[in-house]
């Protein structure tokens, strides 16, 4: 009957319109990032030109400038080093802590786990004041190592909580069998729990890395010299000469810095959701 099909068609159209709305809402700023990175300055700073596509042919000049004339490569290196160090510190600290809370403690363990997780909620915009004094006392001011010291304060609580969930999903019988078979408690942790929680560990590594890349407040507070900046801080604050924003370069830098994080999030989104919602939803 025509009335039903018209109604159906209207419903379908409005559905796809909604899809398009959300898609464009989410994607447009990134499209804008991409296209700005490849446009010539003449094309960019001309209000007569249509902004949505290239009026002059696309160029790689901004990328070249980024790598040759700025400290962009150095910032990438800084972030890589910071990331690796923070991941290492986090794993060494959070893995045993999560295992202990998941297996070795009863009610106290639950409370302690929640307590550790709650410290994740203590705002950096409160802690940055005393921490900047601590950093100064340790002689780490203006150095990227200050970030290596401070970042674990939020990666450890978050990862401990994530890993607790993963450890709890391994049947305790396997570790008990290992203990009866001659392992010490520590041996059972190393030989059984760790190998069997590899997906969880991988998730934690990826997320710790992205958490460190995301961070802005501590980086802004502790670091002022350009060479020590991590990538996010550098791109957002250092590509300005005088009062002039080098938008082409800024967008190019933002693009390069965003891509790995975006890819990582997508691969591990399902694991991440499972971790976040595991406790709340029965």
């Amino acid at each position: 009957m025509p009335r039903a099909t018209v109604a159906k068609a209207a419903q379908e159209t409005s559905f796809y319109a909604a899809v398009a709305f959300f898609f464009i809402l989410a994607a447009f700023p990134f499209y804008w990032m991409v296209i700005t990175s490849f446009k010539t300055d003449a094309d960019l700073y001309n209000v007569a030109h249509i902004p949505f596509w290239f009026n002059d042919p696309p160029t790689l000049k901004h990328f070249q400038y980024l790598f040759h004339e700025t400290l962009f490569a150095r910032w990438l290196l800084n972030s890589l080093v910071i990331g690796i160090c923070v991941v290492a510190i986090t794993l060494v600290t959070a893995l045993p802590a999560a295992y202990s809370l998941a297996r070795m403690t009863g009610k106290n363990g639950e409370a302690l786990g929640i307590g550790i997780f709650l410290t994740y909620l203590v705002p950096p915009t409160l802690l940055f004041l005393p921490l900047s004094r601590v950093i100064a006392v340790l002689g780490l001011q203006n150095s990227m190592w200050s970030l290596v010291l401070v970042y674990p304060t939020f990666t450890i609580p978050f990862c401990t909580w994530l890993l607790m969930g993963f450890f709890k999903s391994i049947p305790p019988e396997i570790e008990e069998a290992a203990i009866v078979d001659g392992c010490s408690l520590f041996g059972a942790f190393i030989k059984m729990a760790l190998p069997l929680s590899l997906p969880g560990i991988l998730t934690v590594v990826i997320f710790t890395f992205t958490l460190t890349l995301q961070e802005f407040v501590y980086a802004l507070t502790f670091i002022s010299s350009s060479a020590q900046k991590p990538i996010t801080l550098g791109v957002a604050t250092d590509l300005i000469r005088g009062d002039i924003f080098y938008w082409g370069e800024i967008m190019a830098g933002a693009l390069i810095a965003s891509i790995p994080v975006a890819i990582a999030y997508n691969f591990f989104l399902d694991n991440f959701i499972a971790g976040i919602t595991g406790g709340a939803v029965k």
Partner: protein
Amino acid sequence: MVAIAESVPRPASRFRFIFDRRDVLGAIFVSPAILYVLLLVGVPFLMAVYYSVSAYTIYDPSWRFVGMANFEQILENPDFRHTLSNTFIFTFGSQILGLILGKFGALVLLRPFPGRKLVRAIIILPFAVPVALATVAWQWMFDSLYSVINWTMIALGLIDRANAPNWLGNPDLAMLSVIVVNAWRFFPFAIVIFLAGITAVPQDVLDAATVDGAGFWRRNYQIIVPMILPIVAIGLIFGIVFTFTDLSIVFLMTMGGPIGATTVLGYSGFQTGIVSGDVSHGAAISLFMLPVLLVVVVLMLRFIKRREI
């Protein structure tokens, strides 16, 4: 009878099996994490509290106790009260907007359609990409001269160039802009939370409701919404906590301006405590975040507990 070889020789009597005790090893395992958190979160927190009741500045690092003097001083300052209200407007404006977008986005993504995986991947981007980088993109989009938004509105004939809105230069528009950017960052997270909650509602509960005669909207509001409330509440806790204390978006887009129109608590604490070096007042300002955070978290946790299914 099949004979087995001689039995395992019994070990010597007194071993130190101390690390086989769950309580000992358990304590050792947790201690690095606890130590880290105590030393670099717990102690600094106490330091911040002490700063707020002292006369500590960078130029005069005195630990002299001044009681509530700092708090009185900042409360008397009209700029501070403005900052406080800005922070509330910023937080609740962006959370509400983000939640609404999240709810409807989740409903859209519930239904399978060709290309859904790709759409989902793209929709996650605002939340996945580092705050500062996404904010910088918006900054460019709001640029006073070259804003693509203005260009589009002019091209559509909605306004003319002379009256093009100065997104970051006009006090009200500036607040709107930072709210929009924050909501934009938050809504994918809200979508994920809603999706997780909705898909966790057991199908048989929904089926029973349909058999009982509930239509789409009733099912939605009387069955689904109450059941996903706990998980949405948790998402809200995260959202509120991180927005209320944030300074990145304001710092990058408006530097708190124009004329303090978008200054929020986090930014003000930064300006006073770090940039100006007035640590004691900066700490006092930052501490104002705490009561609100505490109230929000406690309220939400109570709410969740009561609704435990």
